[in-house]
């Protein structure tokens, strides 16, 4: 429990401290320090969960499903903070933002980490909602940090669309509580997920079905499912690059986690009705739509960060589809995909940040010759895109392979759609990537001071996971699969 | 007792109709008196409208030479239709023989007939004011009628009958209940009443300015007994709407038998309610300003909205399963 407490309290303390610390150097290092403490605490927590199978108490719950997500969140938070320290210092020096903006940035960074960790570890559906909304609120000011008209517009769109979506999710939560009250005597326990999960079959199916629709539309807006995705490309591309990395890598995962937790409840409730797979079918529908639409939109993009945001939408669609498909194979693949996608995407965004720094622009057409100018950046970008496109031996290939196998077993025709989507996305990514990394560098393009350690670490982990998943992780994913689908895979 | 009842009923019906015609100017006089007091004047006597009517009836009728026979006939038709409509609305007692006629749709139809001839009469002479008044009146009523129908249908849905007497009986026989649908219907009906009777904020009954006339514009060419009949018809219409609001939404006190005591109670109750409503109208007219004409549709849309909300509240909140 202490590990859990430290995990949650460290970012809170960090947020308050960073709100008042003025010198930028100190703030940067303090951010890294707090993130390391958080990561260390989550590592200890994971160790404890590996030993005792789950930790629960005081409306918190860390079980096999969310423990690796918690560690992942803290890890990516740490590496991004390492990247952000010199990067934001440079940004501040170029005058894109003020010293006050930097204080807000650091404070909100830690507040954002707190809300995500809270969302992942809470057992109370209401607190989950509050945390996800809190995550939106924490990042809204950061998207508009640069105060350009585009940034303000992106932030406004983000705020309004996600706010509306989250409000609908609250309605779904209220309906869930309503269904729970008919079944669970103690009103204070009506929103506790673990209790609801045990009694899921007793929950009124019509109410839960309606609630799930609202919850899917609500939290799905934050996952970036088409057609509620309109805010995502803008918000992820207009904010500072460290923000893009954590938003793409972490927040989308947290939202999907919320959807899956609720799907588990709804599946239990609908199990004995005429349409027991309604939740799964909805997820599959939205997921497939997002996957295909995002893959097509990839081709039209002119801004590099927007392109990778669409790639995020595509992968989240794939994961949603996998969770909707159900069954141990697809679920295991989806859980693995959450992990590797997060690592790869954040690495890509960090590299993109450096690339844009080198080229002085985010427009794809004007970024050229990265490998010539700074091989570390160029090769990282190439490997990152290869990883995200699903090349073996990277981990994304493993999860996508598992998903395709599962789809073949259940719905063979959908495999065609998935494969074509994958091919379209691959084509789009490489079409844009190729001229950026290869070819001659433009006049006067100089390499920049870039710490590529976070990127190498992430890509290395993804490679390792593609080649050999460590047994404790496989065990967790398997237990999570069993929790979600009721069936073990391994 | 039955003989008495059978004899008393038509007598009571005729009595009620007479009372309508007789009491209408009194209501208008009361409203003018309260308004004057609010404006710090002494105001004319409450009986002044009677004197005005008597004066007009005695005067000579002058008809424009461009007028058609419709122009002469219209005042009688309008008065007759309005009086007949009014006579059906239960004023004193509920179970009158005319109750069979007291269907809401009949009421709306009779009022529409009266309005139709009024508008035709306004256009008949060919003056600009008359045509303008007629078109404005039609605009207002085109928007007000759906609102009124919607409001009364809300009542009808609860009472399972479009007969006004049936609605009142339903209200009196059930225990008191707070009905959101009735509240909204009342709001809608009040707004419609203001529009249909030509009171502020839709139309100023005392004005003769070109920009602001609606009802007055159509009457501009009339004189003598024709004008008297038209004015009286307008006053009866006001009493009709007042009685509709007072007796249908707050029916307590209305006579359900024809015993003298009950009838007396009925008269007292309705008089009290009408006095209150008249005072409220006078206060409203003093406090509000007349709207510009192009805002009248918004006003009536509000009335329609209220009536719609009443209907929706009935279906969603009151009916249950």
């Amino acid at each position, binding site marked *: 429990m202490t590990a859990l407490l430290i995990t949650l309290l460290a970012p809170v303390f960090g947020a308050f401290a960073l709100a008042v610390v003025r010198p930028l150097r100190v703030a940067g290092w303090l951010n890294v320090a707090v993130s390391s403490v958080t990561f260390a605490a989550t590592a200890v927590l994971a160790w404890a969960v590996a030993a005792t199978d789950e930790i629960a108490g005081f409306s918190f719950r860390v079980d096999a499903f969310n423990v690796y997500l918690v560690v992942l969140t803290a890890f990516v938070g740490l590496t991004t903070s390492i990247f952000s320290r010199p990067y934001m210092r440079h940004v501040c020096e170029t005058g894109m933002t003020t010293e006050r903006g930097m204080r807000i940035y650091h404070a909100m960074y830690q507040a954002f980490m707190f809300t995500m960790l809270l969302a992942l570890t809470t057992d109370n559906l*209401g607190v989950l909602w509050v945390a996800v909304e809190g995550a939106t609120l924490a990042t809204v000011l950061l998207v508009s940090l640069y105060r350009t008209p585009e940034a303000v517009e992106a932030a406004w769109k983000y705020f309004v669309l996600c706010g509306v979506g989250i409000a609908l999710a609250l309605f779904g939560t209220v309906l869930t509580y309503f269904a729970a009250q008919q079944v669970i005597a103690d009103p204070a326990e009506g929103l506790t997920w673990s209790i609801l999960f045990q009694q899921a079959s007793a929950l009124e199916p019509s109410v839960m079905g309606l609630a799930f629709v609202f919850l899917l539309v609500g939290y799905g807006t934050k996952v970036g499912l088409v057609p509620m995705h309109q805010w995502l490309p803008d918000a992820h591309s207009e904010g500072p690059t460290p923000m893009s990395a954590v938003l793409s890598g972490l927040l989308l995962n947290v939202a999907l986690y919320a959807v899956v937790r609720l799907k588990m409840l709804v599946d239990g409730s609908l199990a004995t009705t005429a349409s027991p797979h309604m939740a799964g079918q909805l997820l599959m529908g939205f997921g497939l739509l997002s996957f295909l639409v995002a893959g097509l939109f990839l081709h039209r993009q002119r801004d590099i960060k927007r392109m990778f945001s669409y790639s995020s939408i595509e992968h989240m669609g794939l994961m949603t589809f996998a969770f909707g498909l159900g069954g141990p194979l697809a679920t295991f693949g989806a859980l693995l995909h959450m992990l590797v996608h997060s690592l790869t995407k954040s690495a890509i965004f960090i590299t993109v940040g450096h690339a844009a720094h080198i080229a002085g622009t985010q427009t794809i057409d004007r970024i050229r010759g990265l490998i010539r100018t700074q091989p570390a950046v160029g090769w990282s970008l190439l490997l990152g895109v290869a990883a995200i496109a699903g090349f073996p031996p990277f981990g994304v290939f493993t999860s996508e392979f598992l998903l395709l196998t599962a789809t073949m077993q259940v719905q063979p025709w959908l495999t065609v759609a998935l494969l074509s989507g994958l091919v379209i996305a691959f084509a789009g990514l490489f079409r844009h990537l190729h001229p950026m990394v290869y070819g001659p560098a433009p006049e006067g393009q100089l390499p920049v001071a870039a710490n590529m350690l976070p990127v190498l670490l992430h890509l290395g982990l993804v490679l390792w996971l593609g080649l050999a998943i460590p047994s404790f992780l496989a065990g967790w994913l398997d237990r999570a699969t069993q929790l979600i689908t009721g069936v073990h895979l391994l | 007792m039955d003989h008495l009842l059978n004899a008393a009923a038509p007598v009571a019906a005729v009595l009620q109709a007479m009372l309508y015609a007789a009491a209408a100017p009194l209501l208008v006089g009361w409203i003018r008196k309260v308004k004057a007091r609010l404006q710090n004047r002494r105001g004319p006597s409450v009986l002044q409208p009677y004197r005005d009517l008597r004066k007009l009836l005695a005067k000579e009728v002058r008809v424009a030479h461009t007028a058609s026979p419709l122009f002469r006939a219209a005042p009688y038709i309008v008065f007759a239709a309005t009086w007949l409509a009014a006579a059906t609305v239960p004023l004193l007692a509920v179970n009158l023989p005319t109750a069979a006629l007291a269907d809401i749709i009949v009421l709306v139809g009779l009022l529409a007939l009266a309005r139709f001839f009024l508008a035709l009469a306004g256009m008949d002479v060919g003056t600009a004011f008359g045509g303008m008044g007629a078109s404005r009146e039609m605009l207002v009523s085109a928007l007000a009628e759906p609102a009124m129908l919607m409001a009364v249908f809300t009542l009808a849905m609860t009472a399972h009958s479009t007969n006004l007497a049936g609605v009142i009986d339903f209200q009196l026989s059930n225990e008191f209940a707070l009905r959101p649908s009735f509240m909204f219907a009342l709001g809608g009906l009040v707004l419609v009443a203001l529009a249909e009777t030509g009171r502020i904020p839709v139309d100023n009954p005392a004005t003769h300015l070109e920009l602001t006339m609606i009802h007055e514009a159509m009457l501009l060419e009339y004189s003598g007994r024709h004008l008297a009949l038209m004015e009286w018809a307008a006053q009866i219409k006001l009493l009709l709407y007042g009685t509709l609001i007072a007796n249908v939404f707050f029916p307590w006190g209305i006579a359900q038998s024809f015993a003298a005591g009950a009838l007396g109670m009925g008269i007292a109750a309705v008089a009290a309610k009408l006095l209150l409503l008249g005072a409220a109208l006078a206060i409203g007219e003093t406090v509000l300003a007349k709207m510009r004409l192009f805002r009248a549709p918004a006003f009536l849309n509000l009335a329609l909205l209220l009536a719609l*909300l009443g209907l929706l509240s009935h279906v969603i909140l009151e009916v249950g399963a």
Partner: protein
Amino acid sequence: MSLVSLPLLQQFLLVLAALVLFTSFVLLSQARLVSAIHAFAWQGGLVAAVTGVVAVAGSSGHLYFSALLTLVLKAALIPWMLHRLIRRLELERHVESLRWPAIVNMVAVILVIFSYWLVLPMVQQELAFTRNIVAISLAVVLIGLWMMVVRQQAVAQVLGFMSMENGLFLAAVSATAGMPLVVELGVAFDVLVAMVLFGVFFFQIRQSIDSLDVDRLNRLTETVDEEADLEFSAAPRRPHTVTARPAAVEEAE
């Protein structure tokens, strides 16, 4: 179950819920911003009254606190903050009328009917009373959403958002006799922070496009040819950072 068989308190509850729906319509088409804020304050007050009546009927202690919280937050604090913002933004006399008010109102009525239909499957007899108010609250949420769609002024959109939250709170109170206190506090806190952030945003938007007409925020589309370059754009702002040069940058081809 017919209306007359319900206890008086529950009938009063239905009246209050109907009035909340009415204020929602008023909010939707109110042209003057200041009047719209007043309508929103009334809506908050009515929702607080509903909470109070439910608290009296069920005599659950924490609902009194919720009622007070809603009253203070939704009927007093947030309208006051909006008033203050409007004064600072000099929008006090701003009038923005809907382009097609009849259609907007009609769609709102359709939304009410739609939410009733949506909630209809929750059929059980003992749920009928609460189901109806849930229908009304869903209608308020959807009308708030619709208001955000049709209104172009940023403050009006925020009012729509806040009215959505009112509808959600009404749903929570009427369907479930209040969510656990910790959740309600969290939600209230989130709403307050959202309001503060909205306030900050109004100034940012106005600084950037010189008006609060959100339709003018249209630079980010899929078909823009010239995307503005963010972090490293515009030569005047970019100092050339000369770092240690590694091996040759350019090679003649």
